[in-house]
């Protein structure tokens, strides 16, 4: 670089430097409707993948003392459209299907015969609020062992009495805090909280803890990913 340049050469120099920076305008593809959603879906998938890499399957969820748990009447419940699918408990069963050795219908007492785990864990809603509650139930991994699930399968897919559906990765299903929950605060689940059986996944965001379970499938292929996920929420979203 000479220490002295004429004006036109300086102009060319600065123009070239500006051109070198111009690829930044490629970010405009995020503003253009034709490419926006594809790019954002790609970004979200990448984030899901990255997050699954730092998920520690044996790292326990943070647990709390009884005094830190909210009283039951102040524990919020969200429902996506109907408050109460009016399940008839007398005929309720959980249908188990897919890559399992013992498919079929499972009644609540079969699930309750598994070792019971009671834990005070934090439920975090995607909206931003959180609530520490007392949850009791069977470890999901114990139930998967009971039905003879293929643990090399990739996903657990669940369907609910209120048309909600969701899916999760096997690593989270096997995580020791992941429960098939049938009790809160030592009492059978209230209908608003998903009676008679729901998921309680303290290492996942709230909408993954599906309520009113009616069907559980072990699978490698997902036809649908989840009620909210199919509308744009992240699928992986661990806590």
């Amino acid at each position, binding site marked *: *670089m*000479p*220490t*002295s*340049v*004429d*004006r036109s050469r*300086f102009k060319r*120099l*600065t*123009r070239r*430097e*500006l051109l*070198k*920076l111009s690829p*930044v305008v490629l*970010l405009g593809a*995020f503003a253009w409707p034709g490419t926006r959603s594809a*790019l*954002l*879906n*790609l*970004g*979200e998938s*990448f*984030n899901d993948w*990255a*997050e699954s890499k*730092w*998920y*520690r399957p044996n*790292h326990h*969820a*943070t647990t709390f003392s009884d005094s830190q748990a*909210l009283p039951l009447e*102040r524990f*919020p419940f969200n429902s996506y459209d109907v408050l109460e699918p009016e399940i008839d408990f007398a005929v309720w069963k959980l249908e188990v299907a897919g890559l399992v050795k013992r498919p079929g219908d499972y009644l609540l007492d079969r699930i309750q015969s598994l070792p019971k785990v009671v834990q005070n864990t*934090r439920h*975090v*809603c*995607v*909206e*931003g*609020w*959180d*609530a520490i509650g007392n949850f009791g139930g069977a470890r999901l991994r114990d139930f998967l062992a009971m039905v003879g699930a293929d643990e090399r399968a990739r996903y657990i897919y669940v369907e609910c009495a209120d048309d909600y559906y969701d899916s999760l990765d096997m690593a989270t299903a096997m995580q020791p805090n992941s429960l098939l929950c049938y009790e809160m605060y030592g009492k059978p689940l209230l209908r608003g909280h998903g009676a008679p059986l729901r998921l309680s996944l*303290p*290492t996942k965001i709230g909408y993954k803890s599906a309520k009113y379970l009616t069907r559980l499938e072990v699978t490698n292929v997902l036809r649908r990913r989840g009620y*909210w996920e199919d*509308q*744009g*929420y*992240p699928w992986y979203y*661990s*806590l």
Partner: protein
Amino acid sequence: MISRPPAIAVTIETERGAAAEQAAYEHPLVVRYCHWLSAISLLVLIFSGWQIYWAFPSFGPKIPQHDFVHLPRLLMLGGWLGGALQWHLTFIWIFVPTGLVYLAYEFASGNYRQALFTPGDVAGVWPMVRYYFLFGPKPVQSEPYNPLQKLAYTSVIALGMLAVLTGLAVYNPVQFSFLAKLMGGFHLARLWHFAVMAGLLFFIVGHLIMVVLHGWRNFASMLTGWKRDPEYPV
């Protein structure tokens, strides 16, 4: 005090009666890329963050819910919570790598001495405060940035790091339980994340005011790297 002019400076030759002009290469290409990528991603993160916050505009319990502050709807990005999460979780992957590249470059190249606050800048803080806020005399400028500028840029980098750390504690409070604990738990981490955003916003507003006050030549230098007629000897 050590004078730190940019590495390259030229004289633009006289042309028919015009006075010769100096020009200094202030911003290497890496720095310009990092500036614009982090500026764009930071704005996307803030506006989508407001949309995310809007789903529960409170820092208290859900029952009963007391809203904290209502933000202007116009400045929200994503349309709804799910859309905003997509923007937020996508652009964090531009923001973080950009920040890492910037810091690596600054320290590897020694450019940090131009842009960031170092112990040598301490003595120059008070004269600048006196000039800006107390009608004091203008201190002689011997390098591209004055000590207060460097302090501001260094603080905003610290805020950017805090934004990422508080964000991680809000997003993954179980996997990063040590971070969440450090911030007083998930619940408070969400408040810190918001507070750090407010700090970044404060910087952005001040930064834009200063850009306007310093005019086109100063602004152009962040596009081309070159500043014509710098206010310090080169």
